[in-house]
């Protein structure tokens, strides 16, 4: 180990105690990747702090030593956002697991970053509340990770993303200070840009989340269609009718096959596509709209419609969808997951183009997507033992993202850019756009030590700001007159 890292490890050890600092190579390697395994890098040091003050002290120690650091929650990210640095420290928040406050009258809760998403809901459910963001990994992903990634989930169509459900964060800034960022305070909405910055602006140590009232009714149906096109027609008809479902999800034949193999979800046999539509809200609203959704599905050619009679049946309908990613492991030795977004109305064209891409290249693509908001999760299948297969899959995967951009969409709807998609950022944004975003980063982290190498393909040199001033800061004294 480099002397500077060795010294840092000793310092961290003295600060946190030996069982909070990992330097053993075998143990370190288990942290080499998050939920995305095609990028790996073993960190030099892993630390497991218990408190916000410890996180701040760790960041200060890193800043003083000039050592980069990366924060990690449960390690379930799908863009390599928590990929460690071989020359740096990995700060793992999984021990910071306390739910600090539940304020039902104020419809909010305060949690530590390592608290698991679903545990927030479990804690407030007895009061008739839940935490709305529901990424597929909600049973294990951490709220801190949700903040970093601005996580969505199947139900963000109606309820929005993590950014809409976080009211405030206590943050350790890259200079090691603890500050409070609020959605609704005086000054810039720094919270708004911090959420979704993929851990490049600091590390959150305490999160105030908004709690959402459990809807009076939830109604879920599964509609089976001959083709994706027919399913797409149903989606357009539903949205066109002014219905705002809690979720609309679609799976194609290949992903249905995988889910069936994994969890025996028993979707209608022979379906070319299944659509899951969930409505929630007051009884009277849902009843009226649900009948309409059912009719629209039939009109679009659904050959079978199942309506969940209770929570168990609803869970079974969702089971296939929620396990789809991991389930693809049953039908293919390896796969890449994409996360492109297109305007929903472009679904038919884009799916046809993906089909064509798949046919031309001989690379199988399974499609699972949040149809309501045009968020595609093409699963590009390949056999990693076959030479060149990974490269071909990568090519198809990149071509799909190009399609998304071409149709005015985005390269990522919820997984984040991380290290995996930073190379596609210049296809979506101009140099000026990226440079402007990085101005924020330079404001927060001029030394570039906080999760470097993520989001942006090339770092901005923060020192190159035109007109850098010398002497006292022009604001000095101004705010102090009161």
């Amino acid at each position: 180990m480099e002397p500077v890292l060795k010294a840092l490890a000793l310092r961290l050890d003295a600060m946190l105690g030996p069982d909070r600092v990992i330097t053993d190579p075998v143990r370190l390697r288990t942290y080499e990747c998050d939920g995305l395994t095609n990028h790996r890098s073993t960190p030099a040091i892993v630390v497991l702090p218990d408190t916000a003050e410890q996180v701040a002290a760790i960041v200060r120690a890193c800043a003083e030593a000039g050592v980069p650091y990366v924060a990690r929650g449960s390690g379930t990210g799908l863009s390599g956002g928590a990929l460690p640095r071989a020359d740096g420290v990995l700060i793992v928040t999984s021990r910071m697991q306390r739910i600090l406050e539940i304020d039902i009258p104020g419809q909010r809760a305060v949690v530590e970053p390592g608290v698991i998403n679903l545990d927030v809901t479990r804690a407030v459910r007895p009061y008739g509340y839940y935490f709305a963001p529901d990424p597929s990994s909600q049973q294990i992903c951490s709220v801190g990770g949700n903040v970093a990634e601005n996580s969505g989930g199947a139900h963000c169509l109606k309820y929005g993303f993590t950014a809409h459900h976080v009211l405030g964060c206590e943050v350790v800034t890259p200079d090691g200070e603890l500050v409070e960022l609020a959605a609704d305070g005086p000054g810039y909405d720094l919270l708004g840009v911090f959420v979704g910055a993929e851990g490049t602006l600091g590390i959150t140590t305490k999160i105030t989340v908004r709690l959402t009232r459990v809807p009076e009714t939830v109604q879920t149906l599964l509609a089976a269609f001959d083709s994706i096109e027919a399913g797409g027609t149903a989606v357009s008809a539903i949205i066109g009718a002014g219905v705002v479902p809690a979720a609309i999800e679609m799976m194609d034949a290949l992903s249905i096959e995988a889910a069936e193999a994994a969890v025996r979800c028993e979707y209608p046999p022979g379906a070319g596509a299944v659509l899951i539509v969930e409505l929630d809200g007051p009884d009277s609203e849902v009843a009226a709209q649900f009948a309409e959704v059912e009719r629209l599905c039939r009109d679009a050619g659904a050959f079978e419609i199942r309506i969940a009679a209770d929570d168990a049946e609803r869970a079974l309908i969702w089971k296939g969808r929620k396990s789809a990613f991991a389930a693809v492991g049953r039908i293919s030795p390896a796969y890449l997951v994409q996360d492109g977004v297109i305007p929903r109305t472009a679904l038919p064209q884009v799916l046809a183009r993906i089909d064509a891409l798949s046919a031309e290249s001989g690379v199988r693509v399974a499609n699972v997507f949040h149809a309501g908001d045009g968020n595609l999760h093409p699963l590009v299948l390949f056999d990693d033992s076959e030479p060149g297969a990974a490269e071909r899959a990568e090519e198809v995967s990149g071509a799909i993202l190009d399609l998304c951009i071409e149709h005015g969409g985005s390269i990522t709807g919820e997984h984040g850019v991380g290290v995996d998609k930073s190379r596609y950022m210049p296809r979506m944004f101009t140099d000026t756009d990226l440079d402007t975003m990085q101005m924020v980063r330079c404001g927060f982290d001029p030394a570039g030590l906080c999760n470097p190498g993520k989001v942006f393909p090339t770092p901005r040199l923060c020192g190159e700001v035109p007109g850098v001033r010398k002497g006292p800061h022009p604001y000095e004294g101004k705010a102090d007159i009161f």
Partner: protein
Amino acid sequence: MQPLDALAKVCDDVRTGEPEEGVLGVQPALVAAPASVAEAAEVMRVAAEKGLSVIPRGAETRLDWGTPPERCDLLVDTHRLDKLIEHASGDLVAKAEAGLPLETLAERLEEKGQRLSLDVPLPGSTVGGTIAAGAAGPLRTLYGTPRNLVIGLTVVRADGKVARSGGKVVKNVAGYDLGRLFSGSYGTLGLIVDATFRLHPVPTATAWVTCQVDGPQEAHDAVQAVLHSPVAPSALEYIAPGTVAALLEGVPDGVVARAGQLVELLGGKTDITENAPDGCGAYPDGTTLIDVTAPPPSLSDLIGVVNSLGNGVAMTWNGSGHGHIGLPSGLSAEEVAGALSALRDVLGRHKGGAVVRYAPQDVRSEIDLWGPVPALGLMRRVKDQFDPDHRLSPGRFVGGI
């Protein structure tokens, strides 16, 4: 070349400023009204070359908010940037230029049965101004503020370069969300030139359920009853001195049933009406407007403080935990400062705060408009990056930014 001439070369609507165009008494030397994003960029580039300080202006509905600028060499007026660039109704998305008034936008969207779920407390407000002020009305209970509805933003930076963030799809986490950063930034980070919003269908039925309450405790109880009920109101407002009102939106049968549920829940003096009750959706009367962050549990304390401030103090509050207080004219700076500090004391205990939007000029210069600003150092550093020469709305914002 003189700034006026240099600007005239790139923009065909440039003139010298009039005294009545003053921003809180600071008269602009020049006014430019670019008609396109490209023209706006050129104007900003010239301003950078000439070292001009720049203040963006929309419909002037909130130009009197905040602190007076240190200087104003150039007022960039956005009224010619008034196009609805795209309304992709199938995708529930619209892109509009900064100078488009929200009411005009609403009319256009309504043609396709859609809306931007932002109220317009001040008639005439533009897209850009509303975002820059982070303004919203009663619908914020369900839909939030501009930060929740802007999905793409184009700005012209201090150096005249055009930068975009977000896009035209709702679900998008590529890159930093500058839309949220610019929401409520008072024109201090850049010139907003267009924005893309997520839209919602216009509900087929609406109803207001209005209940009269007597005193802070009753108000608190009524608000809590509605918040924890399953009726899911789009808006929940308290309007002093004693009205709690909830807006229900949805399908006709649903709205009728939910309104019935609410009447039962609130009991007694409850009415169902088509229109919002008086005072709902507008800023409260007064010459000083205070914006308060006040989570629901603080409502009774807040009402208590407002009552203690004496007659003529008006107040509205939204179930999202945000309110406005209007102080009557004729109060001295000490009296306003006293009111502010009473509010901050009480709200501070609830993790809330109070910010003065406008006040009479003599009062404004004597009081702390913003209150405590956590993370001010970080804000200054961000400002320094976007506007290293401090030419954009200088001095208009927190901590002298």
